């Protein structure tokens, strides 16, 4: 077809040797768009820069506690010598104290090492386990080995709670049989009842996290009344024997003064009393009071009080008894927080598995760590298992008040 020749010379003659000096088409648009993109980017940053708004450089949204400060970077990123404006411990401590964990800890991390900000609406106390295990994985103190478990790398390697380790017993002296109280029919003031755990164990603290200590008046008195004389409707006080004795004597003295004709009467033996020889008819009010006091003390010291308390007679069998301190444990896990309120969907006996069968005061009825680990474990289908769930780093008993230094306007 072709008569035209495409010799090298002819083709070379076609070339405009200055073609590269001018850009056309895509290369030209590439250059234009490059300029536009850079200009738009700089305009975006410049716009905020002129307004003095550092928003573009914000590393992410703040936690709930600091959300107010989202546009006030300088509150935390306070001025320091030189170029840096990082958030220092001084900035944190200007608003809230952060007491030390233990006096003999080997080092104190910076606040921001554990409480990582700019990660959204997270609880800043929800620190990563590594914040704790950096020490507790191989725990030593400035004074040498620690008294605590030295190798904890996470909840799965958490040691058994001290309170339920082999050989540990309830130090309480109050004799209490859970099995007997939790059986089907317990005799109550108005007939048979079925007691529930929550009849005695009530959430006590303001946030509902701790159990209220067991209290005689609230938890025992309705069934275990301290009646000491059939003529007097008021039960005895639940306090130390000396006070109880004086109080009963006062009531009996007042009673016989109001009923002098009863002085010579002899009481029918009461089956509740321990056995004793019958009293002769009293000759006067004082003798009557002494006879009734002897009965009342026999009933209380030798029967009613002893049902729960350990009594001893250091000053002789006829003297007032000494009552051993009940030593009810109010916190079984002194180094941890346990919130009953948030676990209320679980049946008590599901965790406190030994409670229904326990007959001895010395039985420790709190669950072991394995019970917790059934729910609190690693994985997306499990409850959170971080150290922070139960443990608090800062010893808030050492918290010092902070003198506020900002005005409301400075924070908004």
């Amino acid at each position: 077809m072709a008569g035209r020749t495409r010799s090298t010379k002819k083709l070379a003659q076609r070339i405009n040797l200055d073609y590269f000096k001018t850009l056309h088409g895509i290369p030209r648009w590439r250059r234009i768009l490059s300029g536009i993109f850079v200009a738009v980017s700089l305009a975006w940053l410049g716009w905020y820069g002129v307004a003095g708004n550092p928003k573009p450089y914000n590393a992410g949204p703040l936690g709930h506690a600091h959300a107010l400060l989202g546009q006030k970077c300088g509150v935390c990123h306070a001025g320091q010598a030189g170029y840096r404006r990082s958030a220092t411990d001084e900035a944190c401590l200007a608003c809230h104290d952060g007491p030390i964990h233990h006096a003999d800890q080997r080092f104190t991390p910076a606040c921001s090492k554990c409480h990582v900000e700019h990660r959204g609406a997270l609880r800043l106390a929800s620190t990563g386990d590594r914040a704790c295990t950096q020490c507790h994985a191989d725990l030593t103190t400035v004074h040498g080995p620690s008294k605590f478990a030295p190798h904890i790398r996470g909840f799965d390697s958490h040691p058994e709670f001290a309170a339920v380790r082999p050989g540990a017993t309830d130090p309480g002296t109050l004799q209490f049989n859970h099995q007997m109280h939790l059986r089907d029919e317990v005799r109550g003031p108005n007939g048979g009842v079925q007691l529930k755990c929550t009849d005695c164990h009530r959430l006590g603290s303001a946030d509902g996290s701790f159990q209220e200590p067991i209290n005689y008046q609230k938890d025992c008195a309705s069934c275990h009344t301290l009646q000491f004389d059939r003529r007097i409707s008021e039960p005895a006080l639940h306090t130390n024997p000396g006070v109880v004795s004086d109080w009963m004597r006062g009531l009996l003295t007042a009673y016989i003064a109001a009923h002098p004709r009863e002085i010579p009467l002899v009481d029918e033996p009461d089956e509740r009393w321990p056995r004793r020889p019958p009293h002769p008819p009293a000759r006067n009010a004082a003798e009557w009071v002494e006879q009734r006091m002897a009965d009342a003390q026999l009933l209380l010291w030798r029967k009613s009080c002893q049902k729960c308390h350990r009594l001893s007679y250091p000053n002789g069998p006829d003297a007032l008894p000494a009552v051993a301190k009940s030593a009810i444990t109010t916190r079984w896990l002194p180094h941890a927080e346990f919130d009953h309120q948030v676990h209320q969907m679980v049946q008590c006996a599901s965790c406190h598995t030994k409670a229904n069968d326990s007959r001895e005061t010395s039985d420790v009825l709190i669950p072991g760590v394995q019970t917790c680990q059934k729910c609190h474990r690693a994985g997306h289908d499990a409850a959170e298992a971080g150290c922070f769930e139960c443990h608090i780093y800062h010893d808030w008993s050492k918290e010092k008040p902070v003198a506020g230094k900002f005005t409301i306007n400075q924070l908004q």
Partner: protein
Amino acid sequence: MDRTHRPWVIATAALAIISTAAYVLYAVNTPGGPRGGSAMGLTFGMAGYALMLYAGLLGARKQVPTWRIGRAQTWMRGHLWLGLLNLLLILLHSGFAFRGPLTLALMLLLFSVTGSGILGAAIQHYVPGFMTSRVPLETIYEEIPHVRVQLRDEADELAAAISQNALVEMEHDDRERFREVYLNKVRPYLEDPEAPDAELADPLRSEETFGALRRLLSPPVYGALDDLENICEEERQLSRQIRIYRWLHAWLLVHVPLSIALLVLGAIHAVMALRY
């Protein structure tokens, strides 16, 4: 991907594995989790930005081809593989989180640049072979307008030679008929080959047109007619070259501007992040 890429693949994979292993160790052992501002995070960030700068230097290398700083092929392979590694390093720098406006913009830019780069590499791998087979008369892209002017001039000379009986004596009517076809079909096509209604842009229609002219005219002008037809064919190939060239290079309209914006914003991010 030929065997010459193998050292790059091995080096990139090795660096990726080492970086990932270092990141995992660092992430597991860092209270509060990985952060761009930590020593390890900054190391990843600086390495990533250095690779970005290196990748950006390919453009400079192309602008000044006379620089004696390694072969263009080597630069391109480094651009491809270290560019991919750069994405990983920046992700490790960020701890796979980009919550701030600037960091989010930077990550979007990085993903766009890397994505467009991968697309471009695939296009540049497959399309040139297509170009060779479909455009045997390929010329330098920037020369196409200039070549087209020359083709028009050449066609005008051929048409004048035929019309003015320079080749052979023709009947008046035949000469007018040729002039009409040339002025109404051939010349407009050569004037604007990209016009959507250009009849001669279709090879079949072109063949029909020139076949009709051959039947009309005597054999001595067939050579000139062949040359005219050949010029039209070259125009069609130039049009095809333009289309293929656009496929080959359009991705650069995304890749290059976003890369430059990424480099500029990345530098600003580094300066500001070190402050805070």
